[in-house]
């Protein structure tokens, strides 16, 4: 079996309020077609692109997060092709002088850490959207197409990896890592479903003699699952072609998620010529050292730094730390919980079990979880002080989540008496239990409870009556003494 060699191009839609080169709103999802448009993004004669400051900042942030060096001689190029989704018939992109070059991402796969090199990150504008109206849902044979330019000109940063991945597991880990970083840095939503994170896969097979085979690009993979499947299919397909003595063509293939196969797009690689050259309508970007330093200082703690710190400062296991830092919001929640006084290990446990379960049930992301982290912290503290049992606390948390109540009120609402039942209060309860079970009491007092079963039965009833809020040892001794 030949080793697969995979490189990825990941397009991240940057989280700006406006497009890359004009002031149109970037809030295009669900918008009426062709409403987020203006003379610039429709390529009306005489208009000129004006670079979005914030997009540059986000690209620099992401570049720094990928350990890239930020170029202070960065430029845009024009990439030419005629197509209905591209009003200028060229896309403004970065070609020879991308804004960030030469970085890496460390991924964990197969129980090991592996460094995936990032070739570069560049800025570019997105194209518009085409709608091919056909009744049967297939694209074949539509007599016309409709064009919506709302997405045209949206800011993208394309992250191009080196071909350093050798399995689907590594590919998924890399994508997950990029997505996590983008979200930590608040650079992109990184959602494959909505298209704010898009992946093109370049795959070739390494021959037994170490040489690399023909590279094939796979497009139209819109979820981690489909990437995994497409890789599996493509690896098998390429192996089969080679095993049968065939030749692979350098081409772009489209993943068909329904059929579970990749299909060749009519190959025009050789014929195409994008005629890249410098875009002179835009002044060069001045991302000088001071500017980059300023952004570097503003960077939040990176996910891997957080993970290390959680392990170090909170004595969490790798697995716990990884899970809690997967999302920045989860990590923040955890830390707030800890700062409310709860032990880190307990917080971690609660978050990974109970909070996870509730979030899943309620179908909410952590940032929408109705229980404040500080309140969960208080709850855990009470358990620690043995004011509540674990079981009670779980009930209380459920009420806190459901009714959006703080701890104290939730406890009352649950009917759990707070604090331990002890001394006279406990004696009251025991008397009440004895009154309800005169026969058992009589049996014991008459010395006929040889095996002590009746005493245990009475103790159990008392515990139930106190809803677990009494100390079992105290219950036992009081019950015994009161039976005498």
């Amino acid at each position, binding site marked *: 079996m030949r080793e697969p060699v995979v490189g990825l191009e990941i397009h991240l839609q940057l989280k700006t309020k406006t497009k890359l080169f004009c002031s149109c709103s970037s809030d295009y999802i669900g918008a009426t077609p062709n409403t987020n448009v203006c*003379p610039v993004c*429709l*390529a*009306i*004669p*005489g*208009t*000129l692109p*004006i*670079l979005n400051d914030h997009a540059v900042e986000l690209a620099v942030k992401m570049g720094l997060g990928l350990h890239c060096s930020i170029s202070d001689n960065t430029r845009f190029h*024009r990439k*030419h092709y*005629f*197509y*209905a989704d591209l*009003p*200028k*018939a*060229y896309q403004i992109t970065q070609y020879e002088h991308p804004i960030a070059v030469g970085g890496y991402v460390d991924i964990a796969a197969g129980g090991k850490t592996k460094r995936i090199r990032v070739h570069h990150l560049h800025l570019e504008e997105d194209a518009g959207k085409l709608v091919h109206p056909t009744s049967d849902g297939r694209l074949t044979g539509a007599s016309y*197409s409709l*064009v919506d330019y709302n997405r045209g000109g949206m800011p993208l940063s394309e992250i191009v990896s080196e071909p350093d991945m050798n399995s689907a597991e590594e590919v998924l880990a890399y994508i997950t890592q990029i997505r996590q970083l983008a979200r930590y840095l608040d650079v992109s939503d990184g959602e494959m479903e909505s298209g704010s994170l898009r992946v093109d896969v370049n795959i070739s097979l390494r021959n037994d003699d170490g040489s690399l085979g023909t590279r094939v690009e796979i497009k139209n993979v819109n979820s981690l699952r489909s990437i995994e499947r497409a890789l599996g299919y493509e690896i098998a397909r390429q192996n089969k072609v080679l095993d049968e003595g065939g030749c692979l063509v350098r081409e772009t293939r489209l993943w068909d998620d329904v059929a579970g196969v990749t299909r060749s797009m009519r190959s025009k690689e050789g014929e195409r*010529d994008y*005629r890249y*050259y*410098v*875009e*002179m*309508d*835009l*002044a060069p970007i001045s991302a000088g050292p001071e500017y980059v330093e300023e952004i570097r200082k503003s960077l939040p703690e990176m996910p891997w730094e957080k993970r290390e710190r959680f392990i170090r400062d909170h004595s969490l296991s790798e697995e716990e730390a990884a899970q809690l830092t997967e999302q920045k919001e989860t990590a923040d929640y955890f830390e707030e919980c800890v700062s409310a006084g709860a032990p880190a290990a307990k917080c971690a446990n609660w978050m990974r079990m109970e909070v996870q379960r509730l979030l899943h049930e309620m179908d909410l992301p952590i940032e929408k979880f109705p229980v404040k982290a500080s309140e969960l912290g208080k709850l855990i503290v009470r358990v620690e002080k043995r004011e509540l049992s674990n079981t009670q606390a779980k009930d209380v948390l459920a009420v806190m989540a459901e009714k959006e109540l703080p701890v104290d009120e939730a406890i009352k609402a649950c009917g759990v008496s707070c604090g331990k039942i002890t001394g006279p209060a406990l004696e009251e309860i025991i008397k009440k239990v004895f009154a309800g079970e005169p026969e058992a009491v009589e049996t014991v007092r008459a010395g006929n409870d040889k095996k002590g079963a009746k005493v245990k039965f009475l103790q159990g009833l008392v515990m139930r009556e106190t809803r677990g809020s009494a100390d079992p040892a105290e219950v036992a001794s009081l019950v015994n003494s009161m039976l005498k």
Partner: protein
Amino acid sequence: MEFHKLSALEIAEGVKNGKWKASEVLSAHLERIRKYDGRINSVVTLSEESARKEAEAVDRAVAEGRDPGRFAGVPFLAKDNFCTEGIRTTCCSKMLEDWIPDYDATAIKRMKEAGAVLMGKTNMDEFAMGSTTESSIFGPTLNPRDFGRVPGGSSGGSAAAVAAGFAPLALGSDTGGSVRQPSAFCGVQGMKPSYGQISRYGIVAYASSLDQVGPITRNMKDMAAAMDVLAGADPNDTTCDAYERPSFSDAVLSGIKGKKVAVLTGFDSESMDRPLVEAIDRAAEYCRAAGAEIVKAKLPITMKHAVACYYMVALGDASSKLACYDGMRYGHHADGRNLMEMYKRSRNEGFGKEVRKRILIGTCILTRGYYDNYYVPATKVRQMIADEYAELFRNVDALICPISPALPYRKGLVEEDPVRIYLGDAFSSAANLAGLPSISLNVGFTEDGLPTNVQLMGPRFGDAGLLALAQAIENEAGSPAVADIEKKGGCEE
């Protein structure tokens, strides 16, 4: 009152002090256009209604004691590649025959804000590609100084209109000489400011890194005032420099005493038209008389490579900027069975022959192989040309050289000898390549009444100093008079 012989500043002065009304001035100019433009075909669209409104607004401002602006009531024309709100902007191409922009180019906006009144749009070579104003869909413009000759191009309509007294001021665009060469041919003053001096926003592009707005006037004081009005940063054009401009009107009067002016040597003056060589000497003499020191200068790299470099840069960019005309959102549309066929047919029908050829050449030099062997060397040569000028201007304040090697061409030359016309850009295009300010200045007429002009060039953003030099020469040479187009009967063929 012969309004058409007044300068822009004289008109504005009279409007401001109540000597005459903007509406009156406008009527006189419109009448002259209607009466005589049939002879030279310089104006392709008149916007009388909007012009009247603008003039009335100026008159109202004067009546109410408000500041009517620097160019109060000055009627002006703009080349038909300036976007004008509500007025069709065709680039004299079938491609944009019916296109009405809904915004004003920044240059137009600034003129209007200064109280100038836009009368209409002028004829040009299709998409500014040409030097004769013969490739317009509206037919050729004739030279008002000699109807048998071309007015130059591509801003031939604007230059001819100013020469003919249709307006004291017109706007053109200059990619490789398109303001200065027609100004020379028509015997008026034309300026291409430094790249980045005036916003390009709203100018239908030919080549992004070469295009610059340029005013055409009959005297340098009007030119300086136009520069004051037009120059300035623009949030819609980041290639327009944000530096603080001096007052060009103050600068134009500052004289050239003690300045060092170089005269270009080392080019083939034998193949030039004799009166144009003499014009250089005359201009140098005027400079000396005004107190400047005259030295000689050579620009070997520029002289050898400017035209070739210019064509690579300009055509490469043109093929890119003209790709947006696909018949799908605006512009000429032809049906097609599929998308590519629609594009192809729309572009074939919409673009004229010359434009199509230039797009092909431009596309070719950006493709694999040609890009490395032709386009990239051109961008490097361009830097060398810029460096050669920068070096020159470390030692001298300005350069005098020809603007065109030839007097106005006879009509139809473009068909007979296109390469000769290409080579005509030798002197003019370097200013665009290096981004330098350049003025085409009239220094009198031949015995046959043909204008002779020289080119003045200065360091980048040295526009103010260059205006002072031009003014000093104009003081001696006199400013050109309006062509007596009314005395010439019809077409002299």
